[in-house]
């Protein structure tokens, strides 16, 4: 607690003198004050279950896991100590429903796309994800060395993800992609032999292979076509908090906090072959 106070943004003096709304001199914390749902509390949403490696032990409030750590880092920049952060469960399908939201922002491996940005507001990206292919060790799908090699197989991904689009657009297998409701189903299908391979973002793939799937292996990774895909935090359209969060993100990117978080929670991706 003392440490946290010590690390708190310095500027109570600066805010006292700086009454003009000059964004360059203003901290993220100043920006954010008064803009949250509940005063002095930051309400963050995510889905349940909260999967590894983005969270840990299905408990977003323990600060462990990449997204949990990023959320708390951003909250601190906005002037909210750990105790001032509350988490709320937001099923993914409800996060983009019209009407007022019950959270200040939602952090849930949500990819930023222009179509989605018409309905909600996104923060800047906080992670750039490559897609990875998981198969059972020793299976024919595991021998693939290029995307074309994967065409004859049954490949699956979670609904509504860019992984799924990646299958349809980039791999274009001969049979239709298999769609799962969640990662757990994907893992079961692979274990049962009901699919030959699954596609997920690289960090999730690492976690699945390391912990969840027996005899699983990452066959390779591939980038999404066009712009690299970014995860962003989701806000209600027109929420003024977005700018403050972007400022906070910029800060933690510059001062190396984000990189450290990434290094701590998301494995190095050096040795995974890139499939073309």
């Amino acid at each position: 607690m003392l440490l946290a106070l010590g690390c708190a943004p310095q500027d109570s003096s600066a805010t006292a003198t700086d009454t003009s709304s000059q964004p360059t001199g203003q901290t993220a914390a100043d920006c954010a004050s008064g803009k949250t749902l509940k005063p002095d509390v930051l309400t963050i949403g995510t889905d349940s279950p909260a999967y590894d490696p983005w969270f840990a032990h299905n408990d977003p409030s323990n600060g462990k896991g990449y997204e949990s750590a990023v959320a708390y880092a951003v909250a601190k920049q906005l002037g909210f100590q750990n105790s001032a952060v509350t988490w709320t469960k937001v099923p993914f399908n409800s996060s983009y429903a019209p009407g007022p939201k019950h959270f200040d922002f939602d952090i849930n491996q949500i990819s930023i796309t222009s179509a989605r940005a018409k309905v909600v507001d996104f923060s800047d990206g906080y992670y750039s994800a490559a897609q990875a292919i998981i198969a059972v060790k020793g299976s024919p799908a595991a021998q693939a060395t290029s995307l074309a090699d994967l065409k004859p197989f049954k490949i699956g991904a979670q609904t509504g993800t860019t992984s799924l689009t990646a299958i349809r657009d980039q791999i274009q297998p001969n049979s239709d992609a298999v769609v799962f409701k969640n990662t757990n189903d994907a893992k079961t299908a692979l274990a049962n032999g009901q699919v030959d391979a699954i596609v997920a973002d690289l960090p999730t793939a690492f976690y699945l292979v390391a912990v969840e799937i027996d005899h699983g292996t990452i066959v390779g990774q591939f980038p999404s076509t066009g712009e690299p895909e970014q995860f962003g935090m989701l806000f209600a359209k027109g929420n003024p908090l977005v700018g403050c969060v972007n400022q906070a993100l910029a800060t933690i990117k510059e001062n190396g906090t984000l990189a450290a978080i990434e290094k701590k929670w998301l494995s190095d991706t050096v040795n995974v072959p890139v499939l073309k």
Partner: protein
Amino acid sequence: MSTPVDDWVPSAREVERRGLRRERSRRDLAVATVAAVVVIGGLVVGLVLSPGWPTVRASFLSWPDAKASFHAVITGFLKYNVTGFLIAEPFILAIGVLVAVTRGTVSAAMFPLRVLAIVYTDVFRGLPTYLVIILFGFALPGLQLQGVPKNTFWLGLVALVLCYGAYVAEVFRAGIESIHPSQIASADTLGLTRGQAMRHVVLPQATRRVMPPLLNDFISLQKDTALLGTIFIFDGLFAAQDYAAYAFNYTPITMVGAMFLCLTVPLTRFTDWVGRRAMRRQFAGSR
């Protein structure tokens, strides 16, 4: 039987009465029309004038999204939902009749089958359909037994058939038990065997009697085919959800709802008509 033709003309009082009745029915029609316009119009106006309407409309009734998702949704709908219930329903009816008839037997040799029938109906009516589908789609293949199909569509259909078969069995049983005992006594006195009585006398009547609840279950089945999405079947609803999650727009879900209505509404009208006709015939014996 026919009334004799005579030269009767209505009296002045009768003409007066007819005039009054005509006036009254005209007034009733006017009131009904006004009421309909007010209520429906009020609802529509309330809807359109509500503050969130533009956002909701863009979210649920967006034409570009409807067009973009239509192909995936209708393919899923026809390929899995419609095909699914068309295949499942005959099996459900067959199982339902078998189980219901088995439960009605009295011979000692049939005892183990009777017990099995009771256990089956109790278990599969008690378990949520969703649960049974997951068991068949995930757990069963996980056992790695020989001969279990990997294709979850068939596994899911088996689950649906077993669940609905139990409900339909109870419906048939109720129908069979509602047949007047004199009917069965008549069949007996004519010398028909139990089996012949069941086939020629009881079942035809029982089936006609329970057409409404049977068709009800059929409609319910049509909607429950959407549960197959849980076991990776990309049916109409799942395709709609997938598009919605990807594009952050619910319009495909509205569209799938409309597709289901196109299926179920004609069927409900048909059910009503069949039910009315069947009951008219059934009440013959009460004279």
